[in-house]
C-alpha cells in the first residue's frame, strides 16, 4: 500500500488520504511524503490542493510538532471514492 503505482489525479488523492487514515489519522508531513512515493514538488502540489479543498488539516501538538489529519470532507472522499471512480468510468468522463 505504501508503494503507490502511477495513477490519475483522483486516485493519487485517494492514496494520500488513505495513507493518513492508515496512520491512525495523524502523520507528519515528511513520512507522508515518503509513503506517497511522489517527488517533493508533486507532493507539494497535491498537499496544497488537499489543504485548499479542505480534505486535510494541519494540527500542532503540545511540543510544537505538526501533524496532518483528515477532515470530515476527507473521510467522505475516501468513502465515496469507489463510487466516484465507477461513475467516471461508466460515463467515460
Amino acid at each position, binding site marked *: 500500500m505504501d508503494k503507490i503505482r502511477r495513477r490519475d489525479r483522483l486516485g493519487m488523492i485517494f492514496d494520500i488520504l488513505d495513507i493518513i487514515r492508515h496512520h491512525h489519522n495523524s502523520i507528519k508531513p515528511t513520512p507522508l511524503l515518503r509513503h506517497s512515493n511522489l517527488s517533493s514538488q508533486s507532493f507539494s502540489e497535491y498537499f496544497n490542493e488537499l489543504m485548499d479543498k479542505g480534505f486535510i488539516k494541519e494540527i500542532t501538538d503540545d511540543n510544537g510538532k505538526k501533524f496532518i489529519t483528515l477532515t470530515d470532507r476527507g473521510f467522505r472522499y475516501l468513502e*465515496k471514492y469507489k*463510487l466516484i471512480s465507477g461513475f467516471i468510468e461508466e460515463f467515460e*468522463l
Partner: protein
Amino acid sequence: MPPFQLIDPIKLAAELGYTLIVVFLCLMIFFKTREIYDLTRHEGINYFRITFLFFALAYIFRFLHIFSILEKITFDTDSMMDIFRIFQFPLVFNGYFSTLAILSLTYSIIWKKLHIKHALLLFNVIAVLISGIAFFSRSPLLLILAQAVLLIFTIILACYFYIRSRKFSQLFLLYVLFLLFWVVNLFALGPRRFIPFEIQTVFQIISIAVIGIIYYKVARWTK
C-alpha cells in the same frame, strides 16, 4: 378553422406530461451529481452535469413556445405579453440552452483529448450565435437546421476520438439517440407538423426511456 392547426388541448397535455418527466429526470441527474462534483471538481463531471441542467431549461422553454403557439391558434387568445411574443423569448432561450447542452455533453467525453481553455465561454459564444439565428429569423426551422449541423459536427468529432481509442461505447450511442431525439422534438415548434403526432409521441416515449437509462446509471453511482 385556422389553416395550420398545430396541436389541440389534449395534445398539449401530452406535451406538458412529456416536458415534466424529462425536466424532472434532467434535474435529478444534475442534483444527484452535485456531491461527487463537489468532492472532486472533476471537469468531465462538471460538463456532464451542467448538460442536464441546460437540457432541463431548454425543454421548459420548448414547452413555453409550444404553449404560446397553441394558445393563439386554439383559444384565439394571447396571454403572452406582446414584448414576450415579439422577441420570441422562449425560442431564443430554447436555442441558447440546448446549444450549451449539446456542446457540454460532447466536451464532457472528449475534454481529456481536446483541452479547450475557457470552454464554457466559447460554448456561450456559439450558443448566443445560434440563438441569434432564432431571434432574427423568428423561425424554428433555422434553429433546427443550425442545431442539426452542430449535432452532426459534434458526432463526427466524438466519433473521431472514439475511433482513435478503438472502443465501441454503448453510452455514446445513448448520447447520440438523446441528442437526435432533441432535434426531432424541435420539429414540434414549427408552423407545420412535419412529423405526425402519433410518431412524435413514439419518439418522445423512446427519448424518455433513453434519459431514464442515463438517470438509472447515474443513480447507481450516486447513492
